[in-house]
């Protein structure tokens, strides 16, 4: 589904990604973790072309992201993305947030789009908030709406960029619950997150990144049981002690 081959990226002289390669198969859940500044978010933003890269290739469903001839908006409309800071559109009601891209990008009718949006809103447990505005919801609620907004486009895969790191501890679980459910339904997911509980529960593989490189690309049990690199061992020791 997602294939990343030898991707490198630099800002001027600063190397952000070095020779990153991995595969995400249909239905797989991949968790990307690593220390801050290791290039996790940059990598995931390369997948839908939000960040350009200088060398290597990324294909999503067989379509090359870096190819200048690729219709990027069309490709992006098929790849859902959830951001650290939710990024709902503050001037639109929740319903409009859920329907605008369906209408303007996919060309759905308003009624069909609203139906779909409200169904998904119900699914993330927020049907009662359809007419509110993003600023009137809590962080956890906003993030669940953001997930519903991405799902409304019927994506072939979902990218999560630290979806819980801007949330109060109390709200993390309500978002993770939605993500777990999605994973169990077979959605192809690539998640940058430090939620190791989530990783242990649903991830197929863990990518560990450090200094712009993919240091480990292991099955979940191998990663948590016996990470091969010293750097990953240190990282796990630090985050799992609390």
């Amino acid at each position: 589904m997602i294939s990343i081959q030898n991707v490198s990226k630099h800002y001027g002289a600063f190397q952000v990604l070095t020779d990153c390669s991995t595969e995400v198969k249909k239905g797989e859940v991949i968790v990307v973790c690593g220390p801050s500044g290791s290039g996790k978010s940059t990598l995931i933003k390369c997948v839908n072309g939000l960040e350009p890269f200088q060398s290597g290739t990324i294909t999503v469903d067989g379509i090359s992201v870096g190819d200048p001839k690729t219709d990027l908006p069309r490709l992006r409309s098929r790849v859902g993305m959830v951001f650290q800071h939710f990024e709902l559109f503050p001037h639109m009601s929740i319903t409009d947030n859920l329907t605008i891209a369906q209408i303007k990008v996919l060309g759905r009718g308003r009624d069909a789009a609203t139906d779909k949006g409200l169904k998904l809103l119900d699914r993330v447990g927020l049907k009662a908030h359809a007419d509110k505005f993003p600023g009137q919801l809590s962080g956890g609620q906003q993030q669940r709406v953001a997930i519903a907004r991405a799902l409304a486009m019927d994506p072939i895969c979902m990218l999560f960029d630290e979806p819980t790191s801007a949330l109060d501890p109390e709200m993390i679980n309500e978002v993770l619950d939605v993500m777990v459910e999605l994973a169990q339904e077979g959605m192809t997911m690539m998640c940058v997150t430090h939620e190791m509980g989530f990783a242990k529960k649903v991830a197929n593989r863990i990518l560990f990144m450090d200094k712009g490189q993919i240091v480990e690309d292991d099955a979940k049990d191998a990663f948590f049981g016996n990470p091969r690199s010293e750097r990953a061992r240190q990282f796990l020791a630090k985050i799992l002690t609390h």
Partner: protein
Amino acid sequence: MGYQWNWSIFGSTVPTGETTYLAWLLSGLQTTVLLSLSAWLVALALGCLVGVLRTVPGKALSGLAATYVEVFRNIPLLVQLFSWYFVLPEILPFGLGDAFKQQLSPLTQQFLAAMLCLAFFTSARVAEQVRAGINALPRGQKAAGLALGFTLPQTYRHVLLPMAFRLIVPPLTSEFLNIFKNSAVCSTIGLLELAAQGRQLVDYTAQPYESFIAVTLLYLVINVVVMGLMRIVEARTRVPGYLGGK
């Protein structure tokens, strides 16, 4: 000081006999309002376009937009006005300059030059505010728009500009007020707007205090109306749960 106040002067007929001094003032007011409003509409459209161009990726377009802003913001308004009215018609190619001078009535020439001058001058300032508004939005908003499959123009149209304009309503109000005040400069090319009519009144009636008080009050009325309008705009577009909304 021995000044003879005479407020009834506004009701007296002008020397040519066909109307009153008050009517002179009101026709000046009408010119000022028409001139400023039309210039404001052009300035908003141009300023929005240039402000957006300053924020798009690609150095050529944003460089061009930056040059535009610097040119129209850094040359004094009076110099720009003289350039539009006296210089431009002389250097316009394809006989456009001659057409301007020969086929348009002097009044239309003055109005057009004044309107374009105010519009371009103000558009540079509007552009800076539009740019500031767009840059003040969280960076993730643009990414979120693009990630949903919006093209870049769609992202501006549906995501960035609606919030950017809400953020800049207060500074835009100032610009809107400024364009009315700046329009007084246009009396220098002979356009009979409010300030010019005020001065004409002084010349004809020798009642400078009454004349200038009336002119001042009329400018004040314009600005109170503008501020009221912009308050309504601000209240109507307020986003619930955001920036002072409920």
